């Protein structure tokens, strides 16, 4: 009855990216274009003079309704490397608290000639709402909306996997932890499936996996050892403190014992398996320091690749 509502906001009728809101609805070709563009930017980040003039004169507004230092910083660095002007708005301290609606805030910023909004918000769907209400030449990048999506994280994780593993097709990827509350997990599952991995596994206690999680296109494991058997990539999700001691989980200790990535659990994966984490890590809760700092961990390279991927996203959007 309301088919029109599902029309993809992200792509123009010619299939070009207008906004990056979610991995859902993006064909593999678009994802690969971002990854390939990011590869060219990796060399930029390794140069002495790290800038390209691609976005010179463009104003990029970081609209962070949810606090974040890491993600905001990487977007800021990426924008500056493209020679853009960056404005950071920490909305928790600005007009939002004075009762201004989300859309009014966006309208006011648009009037200041913003070209791109990087949005992080505590509510699922916030980036879509903003994208539906911005003017025609303004691009919106979702830096994380509630539990729904974090597309640039999924893309940088895909980039990292391709960097170390070459191709996606024969890979088994395990995502371990609080999938229920994770926008990173949702976006990653979609990206990995579209890019054609052999299998995506989610591993966690029942309370941390959505009841209909299998509809996302994953194999479900409650036994971490069984789930890690023979995988090529292990992605650990952060477990937030608020989840402990409530109706979801009894304690960090029990979680770490059964789901924490320790060397002996990692040994069940392939010997050349890589360990990833979107950060920040809770050492001793979801991941053991020996693994986080060990030879199979690619957690720090993820951060570097994240800058290149975000440069690619912003560059492609501004060019469309």
């Amino acid at each position, binding site marked *: *009855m*309301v088919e*029109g*509502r*599902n029309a993809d*906001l992200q792509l123009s009728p010619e299939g070009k990216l207008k906004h990056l*809101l*979610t991995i*859902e609805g993006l064909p593999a070709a678009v994802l690969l274009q971002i990854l390939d563009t990011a590869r060219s930017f990796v060399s930029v980040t390794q140069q002495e003079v790290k800038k390209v003039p691609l976005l010179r004169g463009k104003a990029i507004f970081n609209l962070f309704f949810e606090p974040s230092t890491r993600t905001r910083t990487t977007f800021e660095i990426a924008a500056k490397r493209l020679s853009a002007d960056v404005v950071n708005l920490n909305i928790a301290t600005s007009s939002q608290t004075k009762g201004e*609606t*989300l*859309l009014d805030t966006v309208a006011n910023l648009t009037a200041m000639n913003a070209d791109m909004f990087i949005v992080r*918000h505590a*509510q*699922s*769907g*916030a980036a*879509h*709402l903003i994208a539906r*209400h911005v003017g025609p030449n303004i691009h919106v990048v979702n830096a994380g*909306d*509630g*539990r*729904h*999506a974090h597309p640039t994280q999924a893309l940088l994780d895909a980039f990292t996997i391709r960097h170390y593993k070459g191709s996606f097709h024969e890979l088994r990827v395990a995502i371990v932890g609080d999938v229920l509350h994770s*926008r990173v997990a*949702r976006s990653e599952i979609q990206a990995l499936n579209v890019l054609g991995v052999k299998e995506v596994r989610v591993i966690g206690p029942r309370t941390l996996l*959505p*009841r*209909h*999680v299998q*509809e*996302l296109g994953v194999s479900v494991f409650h036994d971490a050892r069984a789930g890690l058997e023979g995988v090529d990539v292990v992605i650990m999700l952060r477990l937030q403190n608020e989840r402990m001691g409530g109706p979801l989980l009894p304690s960090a200790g029990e979680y770490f014992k059964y789901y924490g990535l320790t060397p002996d659990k990692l040994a069940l994966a392939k010997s050349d398996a890589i360990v990833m984490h979107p950060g920040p890590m809770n050492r001793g809760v979801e991941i053991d320091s020996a693994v986080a700092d060990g030879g199979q961990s690619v957690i720090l390279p993820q951060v570097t690749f994240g800058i290149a991927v975000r440069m690619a996203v912003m560059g492609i959007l501004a060019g469309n």
Partner: protein
Amino acid sequence: MQIHIKNGRLIDPAAGTDVVNDLFVADRRIVAVGTAPHGFKPERVIDASHLIVCPGLVDLSARLREPGFEYKATLESEMQAAVAGGVTSLVCPPDTDPPLDEPGLVEMLKFRARSLNQARVLPLGALTQGLKGERLTEMAVLRDAGCIAFSQADAPMSDKQVLMRALEYATTFGFAVWLRPEDATLSRGGVAHDGEVATRLGLGGIPACAETIALSSILILARETGARVHLCRLSTAEGVAMMREAKRGELQVSCDVSIHHVHLSEQDIGYFDPNCNLVPPLRSVQDRDAIRAGLADGTIDAICSDHTPVDEDAKQLPFGEAEPGATGLELLLPLTLRWARESGIALPRALRAVTTAPLRVLGQSGGSLAAGAPADLTVFDPDARWNVEPAALNSQGKNTPLLGHEVQGKVRYTLVDGMVVFDATLEKSASHHHPF
């Protein structure tokens, strides 16, 4: 006033007939069908050629937003919406501000509504003071002020002992209690049905058992107390099955569904359309199909609009923050017709769900076009197509999942108590009724 409605297609849900004929109205009643009574001199002749004439729609739930929420909608705008939608009687829930737990508030609402000379307003009284679920209201005094039954609206009632006592107290006077089954602890943190869509969109889920567990408790207490209970806004397949079972056991219960749940499912949320944020939530396609089956086999008695005007500022927010509810008075008729068409149900039978059945829930007979029946009538063009746009709606609530869509079925005339209270030929545009 003597009115001759000429040549209309008379659909009488009570009699089950569908036949072209003339209808004569005088002294607030239908005085004849077919031949004019002796000496009948019409002061008005309505040409109903190619139009359907049926009993006025009876809507079991429409929020008028007065008292207290006048910035969302007013009695004037919503009563206009009602008659523009062919609704001649409507039941309003008690969750106004303050709630309808004092006779003075009820009397004022009834007085205001009556003075507008439009649809009949049948208020539900609050079952507990302030709708807090703790202390009983003065139900008998509220009934005397005009309340037709008692309800908790959407306010949770967690203390089952209070609920049991409230039901017992209601049976003292033979009052009906209307309850929407929802366990607040199971729905806590949820904004959408706990299914495939909420999983994918990362929205807090409300499991079906939030409805069925509460429904089970209510049905058991209804049996224990012998209370006459009406269950509001079922949304789950399992809930429909439980009602079917309860009715087989001859329990004195009835139930309704919102017109939106007859048509929509969680799939219609798309990418976070806040107009699809409803209470109860839109559920799976299987739940929607079970609701249709429940309407077809009579398990579900009535369809209502659950009209809930929400202002733009409260709706255009991220899905989880948006205020739930949809405007519905003006969509009840076209969407009921659509359901009839899609289900292959003949109009006399289909229109029962919005005429005779709601009246039966209210403990009244009626919903007929026989001589002697009250002249509450809806005259509509079943073929007229119109686009659901803000300017096309009289309600101040423009919040509908159908925004931008075309619907079929438009009211031309509405009569209440033998008087024409809505005449589409006189309406220039809906905005003519707004204060600005």
